[in-house]
């Protein structure tokens, strides 16, 4: 399963990902129309700024998933790829998932009494947030692919440091 990974050092805290996420999850899917929609479209990832850091937080599609375990209406389920999704028509707005998610990345659209979370943009090849990130801080990849890249990058850093030191 492809996941969204974060390269923390690249995030500038510009919130482009949040904006793209909200537009993708709007009725019109266009920025100009989306800002006039009621209820207002909600983003499903959270760029936290504070403590001298910039951290984009996304659903990890955990297994087991605390939100799914807590969902009493059966609205939250895991699809065959492993993605944790919510069915709007089954959600009653009890907010058990918001109480349970340790990352705090399940939000709500209170007017509609539904919880909203990352669905990895089922209509797109690459999720909207990843596509919108100007510094490529967000990466959409298989875990092995991504961690392989991280290991190679780390090896490069160590090699360069060794070369500089030597």
């Amino acid at each position, binding site marked *: 399963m492809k996941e969204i*990974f*974060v390269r*923390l050092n690249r995030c500038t805290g510009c919130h482009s990902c949040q904006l793209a996420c909200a537009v993708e999850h709007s009725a019109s899917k266009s920025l100009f129309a989306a800002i006039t929609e009621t209820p207002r479209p909600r983003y499903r990832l*959270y760029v*936290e*700024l*504070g*403590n001298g*850091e910039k*951290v984009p*937080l996304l659903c*990890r599609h955990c297994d*087991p998933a*605390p939100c799914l*375990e*807590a969902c*009493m*209406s*059966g609205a939250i389920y895991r699809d065959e790829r492993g993605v944790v999704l919510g069915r709007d*028509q*089954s959600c*009653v*707005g*009890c*907010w*058990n*998932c*918001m*109480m*349970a*998610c*340790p*990352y*705090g990345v*399940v*939000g*709500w659209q*209170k007017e509609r*009494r539904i919880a909203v979370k990352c669905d990895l943009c089922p209509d797109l090849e690459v999720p909207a947030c990843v596509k919108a990130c100007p510094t490529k801080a967000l990466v959409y990849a298989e*875990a092995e692919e*991504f*961690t392989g*890249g*991280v*290991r190679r990058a780390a090896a490069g850093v160590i090699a360069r440091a060794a070369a500089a030191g030597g």
Partner: protein
Amino acid sequence: MKYLIIGNSAAAAVGAIEAIRSQDRTNPITVISDEPYLAYSRPLISYLLAGQVSQENMFYREKDFYENNRVEARLGEKAISVDPESKSITLETGEKLFFDKLLLATGGTPIFPEVEGRDLEGVFTFTRWDDVQKIMEFMARNRIEKAVVVGGGLIGLKATEALVERGIKVTVVELADRILSITFDHKAAAMVEGYLKERGVNIITDNTVSLIKGDNSKVEKVILKDQREVPCQLLIFAIGVQPNVDLVRGTSIRVNRGIVVNKYLETSVPDIYAAGDVAEAFDLVMGIDRPIPIWPSAYIQGTVAGYNMAGLPREYGGWFAMNSVDICGLPTISVGLTVPPEDGYEILEDHHPQKLTYRKIVLKDELVVGAIFIGKIDRAGIITGLIKDRVKVSGFKQHLLREDFGLVWLPKEYRKHMVSGVGVEV
């Protein structure tokens, strides 16, 4: 290998089936339930009564869940006894069923006090689909203007919300000095109480129903302990549930308040497990074994029991009380210990009665042990996570109630520990 599950109360039984089938695709699973329905969500009954959820949407899993998981569901059949020695159960019809592994997921039964007049028409309890079915039939046949709900806990208030939604004037009668006394402190209770009163709900505390009066066999009014009379055409008892242990009384299976289980959720008799509201499992905030009748722990216990039944050893790490309930549009969350029982606790608080927001965090020895969120509940799960993972908050506790609180305020080591996978950081 034959798996047998008694109880259809969605969370625990479904959790067990999903866990068993993840390990064992072939051996037969049979579910026995005295309710005629496919696994449905009991907390949804108030939404059904309010007309916010259709009969179709009451089910907790897809309609073909049992079929797809090759479960023989014997619905509407009641188990009346368990015989641990011969590894069998007996149904009401006299039929005997044998098992290799048994799960007791019999849930809770409502407490229905012996008040004179409780057999009158129009008097109901409020835990099962059939309760709501009967209430709706009764409402269709009778003109209901006023109702009394006995019990100001979460179930009572959800029943109240549903009745308000149907245009009925409700009086809540609560024995304690405030509503929500088990989950909330005075400030939180006062906030919810004020909110409900504004919506026309009458709330009477420190009181109880001592007599139910009626005419033509139908309820007409209740007389309270202080002799006050409250007219009503509908009366709902929602004063709580107790573990439904009838089936195992008098057997070698150990029962305390609920069915006693070890960390594998196995009862005192090998190969017999218990999960959900009937089980007395570990509460990691209180540090004791006790039944906690809540959804998440029922599901998790079901899965842990299921894995163990299928031969994959899994330990139940314990859980704690947590409730998220939206009452007439006011979101409320309570987690763990919200009212310190003695000195030695530290309280962090952000209380705005006018804005209808309240956040409170209870600390003991630098650990979060409880929290309340009203009105503003976003990111509450992060606090729940700190309780569950027993994270020392020294050094960052001053940030816990920030307006912009988030994971970024937590120490990096904790954030790393939370995320699985190399190179995956938050």
